[in-house]
């Protein structure tokens, strides 16, 4: 099962590598990882997407919790939550393909943030599945470059 693990940790140099090092040392997988400071500049929030059965996820949560720099660990997928991921994709366009691309952009509500003569740079935020669907809907040889942020999210209850 896919889990989104949200980690609040001290915003100190090296804290990121403690978490990522733990994942590689213990053979836990990481599908995506995002990290940035929060409104409290001494705290960072890291969001990790990992796939594993319940035992493994339980171990991940416990092991991460054990790290001295970690303040709080939540398995977002275990609660009501919202999640988003941002995609930025560079798409080549030509007279022949422009209409198709425009239609897909419309359909997915993706936004062109830079338009050159022969290429668009497009952004799309949403659940990972939506981003996968959008990329699949584009013609593979039109995609020049893909950059995804990985998932971030918060728990819905206050």
């Amino acid at each position, binding site marked *: 099962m896919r889990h989104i693990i949200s980690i609040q*940790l*001290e915003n100190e*140099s*090296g804290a990121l*590598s*403690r978490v990522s*090092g*733990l994942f590689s*040392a213990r053979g836990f997988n990481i599908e995506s990882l995002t990290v940035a400071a929060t409104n409290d500049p001494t705290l960072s929030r890291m969001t990790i997407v990992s796939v594993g059965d319940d*035992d493994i996820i*339980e*171990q991940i949560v*416990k*092991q991460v*919790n*054990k790290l*001295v*720099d*970690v*303040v709080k660990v939540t398995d977002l997928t275990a609660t009501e939550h919202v999640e988003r991921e941002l995609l930025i994709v560079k798409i080549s366009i030509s007279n022949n393909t422009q209409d198709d691309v425009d239609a897909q952009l419309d359909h997915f509500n993706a936004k062109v943030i830079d338009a050159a003569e022969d290429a668009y740079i497009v952004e799309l935020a949403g659940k990972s599945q939506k981003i996968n669907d959008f990329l699949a809907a584009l013609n593979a040889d039109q995609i020049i470059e893909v950059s995804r942020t990985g998932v971030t999210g918060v728990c819905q209850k206050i």
Partner: protein
Amino acid sequence: MKLNGAQILVDCLKSEGVKHIFGYPGGAVLHIYDALDACTTIDHILVRHEQGAVHAADGYARTSGKCGVSLVTSGPGLTNAVTGIATAFTDSIPMVVISGQVPSAVIGSDAFQEVDAVGITRSCVKHNFLVKNANDLAETVKKAFYIATTGRPGPVLIDITKDTTIAEIEYEGYPETIKMRSYQPEMQINNEQVAKAIAIIEKSQKPIIYSGGGSVIGNASEVLTALTRNTGFPITQTLMGLGAYPGTDKQSVGMLGMHGTYEANMAMHDSDCIIAVGARFDDRITGNLEKFCPYAKIIHIDIDPSSVGKVVGVDVSVIGQVNDVLYALIQGLEGKTLPNIDPWWQQINEWRKVDSLAYKTVEGVIKPQTVIEALYEVTNGQAIVTSDVGQHQMWAAQYYPFDKPRRWINSGGLGTMGFGLPAAMGAKLAEPELEVACVTGDGSIQMMLQELSTMLQYHTPVKIISLNNGYLGMVRQWQEFFYEKRYSMSYMDALPDFVKLAESYGHIGIRVEKEEDLKPALIEAFKQKDRTVFLDIITDPNENVFPMIPSGAGHHEMLLAGRDEMASTNDSGLNLV
């Protein structure tokens, strides 16, 4: 008061109550050494290799229960220390290691003797710090000791840049308390979990207490003994737990696991209720997980939530200080009538009759088991015994029952050859009144031999009991069983003359080749109160450690001495390794 960083560090250590530091100097820590020179309350032990420093600090910590401290220079000093740090980490030993680092200004430039200490040690410390500003020093030292000694203990590294030790700042004294929002080792026991545990215990017909290193580290010996006595349950202890409950007591069924007793392993296998106390279900304990304790409900008591469910699924876990949890169990069981477990004891006593530690003596050769039994006799079972890693370690654990905790000092989790000698030195410094014996092998002793020199300098008389079988015996044993006797690189050709070697280091060396000389030699060695004595005891080169659960087998599939030697080379053995 204006002090430089090095002076501040030394003041912090003094305030922490540190009495011994094991270390080795170098460029990055010269200021610290200069400050130490002016300090009269801390003894610095100059080892001969940084690995020895950390093992000695470790032996000191295991023996005394206090935090071990070691000090090394940057680069090779730190890398030499890593094996020691990992050894302490695996066995959850409280320790603070201070390493020098190149000046902040040149970090990242591949400067002379620069290594990424924090990066290299990350996976084998409980936590680590890089200090680049003298103003952060005192608080960091406070945090380091706090983290190392609370919760599940472990080594903490403080890497200090040279400029930090030189900078002069206004020093406001060592902080008295520390609070960390991200680290809260205190925990409340969950009473519901305790009640669930009691409900299982109350119904059990075949209970057993399985106690590990946590009972020693958590100083839970007294409460563990009370629980065991109150319930009348059998108790088995892991290699790391030996001594928390008296090994000579009739309720003790001995050590369990790969080289545990028949009765301990069979009782685990047949039990319907296992009370795991500060034990982590290591693979040397469980054998094949699919065959592990098929009938038992498992209660797991541990301070570390991540130990629970890591290897084996359990029925109830109680998280907390071992002492507190055991006390809660004792209270909860008070006034309850437990099922009659006489039939269970009868069964266990049947298994005991197998006498799984029996061994055959042979005219003209010294059996290693005999040596340990003689050591036990000569020391009245009262010595601190440190050990290296190999067959001799297992024999020491099997034939020297410990009645007190912190008397058996060995590298259980990492299995670090070379641990025994420096650990013995640390143990002697922690407990100068007690006899310290280092049980070692001809292979292991050569890994930290140089510490003989330190032991002379600091006058730490220990007795080195070297079981010289001319082999990396444990490797030879596995090759005999599982590699069709292809003894690849397990023969230690060209051994030195250990007697002359001991003498050249200023100690006494005695070679023992005949069994009749064994006891007198031991007695003579222990008579030499103020001297380190190296007993080079020539033992049977072909002896194997039994009983044995070959890897892949279950607790009920042990190989026994004399009975299964042939069976042990069968096909199943081969694919078990």
